């Protein structure tokens, strides 16, 4: 299987898993800790996929999706990171590529959510006309989210493949490797202070 075909399948799978984030299920199948090893396994690097996934998860767990807040997207982050690695980037640089991909998905997600506001009068008009098929609107929402995530992840794969061709890129690796080695500690700090604050506030 060629790398591009694998990337296409991985992007489509990321799109499916991404639906679990908000649109359907919410069983945490969209979290980086799961997406990382799944896509890593699919692309022949389960260990690195798992590592990228858990480290992204440790940082992304800092964001809580309360109210109308659109947090950075962990699925996009993990999928982009694993595919960036398969495209030829070192794991350390792939991690930071994933971090950026997840953060930059928020504006797209915001636009998708805003665009769906325009559906409300259309759905109401349809119900008034005696058509009770809400399923169609739900399916449309799932399909658009799925396609957006898949296209977004594949675009990051393509960008990473181009970046991997840049001469002298390896000069960055000593720096990114060192920063990557410190990321688990940054994540553990987030976990520690989250629960410490809760204990301090007594619930």
């Amino acid at each position, binding site marked *: 299987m060629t790398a591009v075909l694998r990337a296409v399948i991985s992007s489509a799978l990321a799109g499916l898993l991404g639906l679990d984030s908000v*649109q359907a299920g919410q069983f945490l199948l969209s979290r980086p800790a799961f997406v990382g090893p799944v896509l890593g396994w699919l692309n022949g690097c389960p260990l690195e996929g798992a590592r990228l996934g858990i480290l992204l998860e440790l940082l992304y767990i800092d964001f809580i999706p309360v109210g109308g807040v659109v947090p950075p997207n962990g699925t996009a982050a993990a999928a982009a990171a694993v595919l960036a690695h398969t495209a030829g980037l070192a794991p350390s640089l792939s991690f930071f590529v994933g971090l950026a991909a997840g953060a930059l998905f928020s504006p797209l997600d915001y636009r998708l959510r805003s665009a769906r506001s325009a559906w409300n009068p259309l759905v109401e008009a349809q119900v008034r006309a005696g058509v009770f098929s809400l399923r169609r609107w739900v399916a449309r929402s799932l399909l658009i989210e799925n396609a957006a995530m898949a296209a977004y992840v594949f675009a990051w794969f393509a960008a990473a493949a181009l970046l991997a061709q840049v001469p002298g890129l390896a000069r960055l690796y*000593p720096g*990114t490797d060192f920063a990557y080695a410190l990321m688990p500690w940054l994540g553990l700090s987030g976990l520690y*202070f989250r629960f410490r604050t809760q204990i301090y506030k007594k619930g």
Partner: protein
Amino acid sequence: MQAGWNYERFQNLGFAYCLQPALEKFYPDPEKRKAALLRHLGLVNTQPYMASFVAGNVAAVEERAAASPDAEAALKSMPGVKQALATSFASIGDRIFWGRLKPMTVQLCVLVWSAGGFFGWLFTGLDSPVSVALLFAGPGAGIAVYSAFAVYWRWRGLKVGYACGGASSCGLDCADWSRLIRRLSAAGFAMSLAIAALAFGLLWRANSGAAPADLAFRLGLPVAVMALHRVSRAYGRSVFFAAGLVLAGSLLLFSVLSFSPFKLYL
């Protein structure tokens, strides 16, 4: 529940979609069913797992209204009750699921991996052989525990909400939420301490041959990173800010100024 989430009315489409089978049963007359469905296409915003408390409550009220000769009177208090419950359960659900259980799944993953002998989550350069089954067991354990809890409360919420439908406090007293939240916080904090102790213990062991000053430096670096995160939080910055600073500093030292590569462990 959250399919079709939008900024104008939040979860209205998903909520109406969830209620639709019940409304079809209660209102065989298409005109009445139409009115009922339109009632629930208005604004709804709550925590997705706890939405079942609201849905069960609303279904019970709609059922009574459908059977009542004065449907308008039966439905009079429903919008207020729905709004009050949605807000209350959102607050409870956010604290239980997003604030506590979700981070605990990450802790569980790390603990399962560590119990299986995989420490790649801490040492980024470590390439020890590890089974794919173990790599999936970590996140799988978190997903199983979390989902079991979530499915249980979704089912229980629907049952409790339907049983006491119409009351504005319906379901709020079905569990000691404060105690549950306190216990989850305590469990999460205990796991955080255990993981921090494990991480520093592993780092200590990985540097066991190092000179005292070298060892102190290698143990001090993670502490400095944690302090950086703490300071960033204190100034309202996200973890990305701290990660960006670490990356910028590392690139400057090792890629621009060409310091010789340094590893946290020997």
